[in-house]
């Protein structure tokens, strides 16, 4: 990705903890993302990736630790400061989270329209430009999210995230539920958009093909902690059993829970 020589930390997460009841989801979670870097956060389901992302953008309040964006502490900010900070972020959600009751053009220009006080014609024109960059025709503008396929909804979600050119982009499993070809297209679109904006990117993904395509750096989250963080080039040679199991998609290994092993044993017994 671009500007790799930049070494300034855009996002600095230090020792974040987050508990839900008795369950410790993030345990001294720390991560640093440099300006214009694309970092992919990987980990098994339930390892706390989405919680980490929500803590970063302020949707969840961590129980302890520090999050700095552009060197400024974001935890404990006033509501107004937090809202100003959110203008720097664009985010897509795992299932799109497009607003059902609004047509596509209003979804895409939702924040931009308020920020720039655009009228309907201006907003529609901008939405047309943005969706065309993501390979969608102007005919989708007046449709509603439910009328689009999963792949098209993902494109619209990306369009909404990049519409007002944020400098930090967060993607929560952008290719989940898509076929490999559409996933590849979405990854290309993410790459192009990120390169065009020069944005710092944090992507959560289970899909190693996507990770290899879009990441500069990969971090693996396990039991609420980062157990490995390094260049995508080194992902196959980490020497850490958990990372190797995840990368190779091996059903047996340290990541596999006792319950899953038990289920596997029962299944084998049934087939035997």
């Amino acid at each position, binding site marked *: 990705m671009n500007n790799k020589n930049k070494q300034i930390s855009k996002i600095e997460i230090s020792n974040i903890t987050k508990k839900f009841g008795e369950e410790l989801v993030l345990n001294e979670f720390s991560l640093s993302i440099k300006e214009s870097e694309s970092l992919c956060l990987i980990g098994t389901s339930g390892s706390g990736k989405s919680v980490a992302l929500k803590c970063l953008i302020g*949707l969840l309040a961590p129980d302890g630790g520090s999050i700095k964006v552009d060197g400024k502490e974001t935890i404990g900010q006033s509501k107004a400061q937090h*809202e100003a900070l959110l203008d720097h972020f664009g985010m897509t959600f795992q299932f799109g989270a497009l607003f059902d009751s609004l047509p596509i053009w209003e979804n895409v220009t939702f924040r931009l329209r308020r920020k720039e006080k655009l009228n309907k014609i201006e907003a529609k024109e901008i939405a047309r430009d943005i969706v065309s960059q993501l390979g969608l025709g102007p005919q989708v503008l007046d449709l509603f999210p439910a009328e689009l396929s999963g792949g098209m909804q993902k494109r619209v979600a990306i369009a909404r995230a990049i519409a007002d050119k944020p400098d930090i982009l967060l993607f929560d499993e952008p290719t989940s539920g898509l076929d490999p070809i559409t996933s590849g297209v979405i990854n290309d679109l993410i790459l192009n958009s990120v390169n065009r904006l020069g944005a710092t990117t944090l992507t959560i993904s289970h899909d190693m093909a996507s990770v290899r395509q879009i990441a500069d750096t990969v971090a693996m989250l396990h039991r609420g902690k980062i157990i490995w963080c390094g260049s995508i080039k080194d992902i196959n040679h980490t020497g850490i059993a958990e990372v190797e199991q995840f990368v190779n998609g091996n059903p047996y290994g340290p990541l596999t829970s006792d319950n899953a092993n038990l289920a596997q044993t029962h299944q084998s017994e049934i087939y035997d």
Partner: protein
Amino acid sequence: MLDLFQSLGKGALAFCHQIGSVALFILLALRWSLTPPFYGKQILKQIIDIGYYSLPVVGLTTLFSGMVLALQSYTGFARFSAEDTVATVVVLSVTRELGPVLAGLMVAGRIGASIAAEIGTMRVTDQIDALETLSTRPMQYLVGPRIIAGTICLPILVLIGDIIGVFGGYLVGIYKLQFNSSIYLSRTLEFLEISDVILGLIKAAVFGFIIALMGCFHGYNSGRGAEGVGKATTNAVVSASILILIANYTVTALFFG
């Protein structure tokens, strides 16, 4: 024995937690309903949904209630030769009690459920989180317009319902019970005071607030998945209906000192 105290304590704590959550939600809802920016398009959409589309339901309910009230009161009052008070009974019952309460309960079923389902679905599909990431306060964008629209629309619906209900009584009085039209109308207006109508409209505004509030509260705090949204919808309708009946007594008692 310890288990009994434990479960009682747990229940009491859960109840207090719920009361506290509702109180906090009311404060936030009031604050963000009255703080600019106001989302005019959203308010208008809700006014159409809550007001315009509830009109047939409220109209039919009050029409038949007025009709049956005329029939029942005639049957009862005829036993002690007080048939000529039917028109007065119909108009006072409809404006003070039946209009607001029946309209409130019908709208609670229709709109309370719809608000809870819509906001609950937005919660479970991350649309509420998405709103926040797009620098929009969900309380201001989702809850505020519904509260404003509910509080404005219910009195208008009830006013129309009152007229339709009284008209229902009139139809039965004239065409079935053979009252003289002009006498029935003069009896209708003779004992009706403006305070009767205003009391009904104040109740309606309170009911509208309650319906929107309960729909928003339960939707906003909906559990995950389809089951969570289903429960939120049921809870919204049940709690709104119960609170309407409690508020009906409270407002009436306040007016009568």
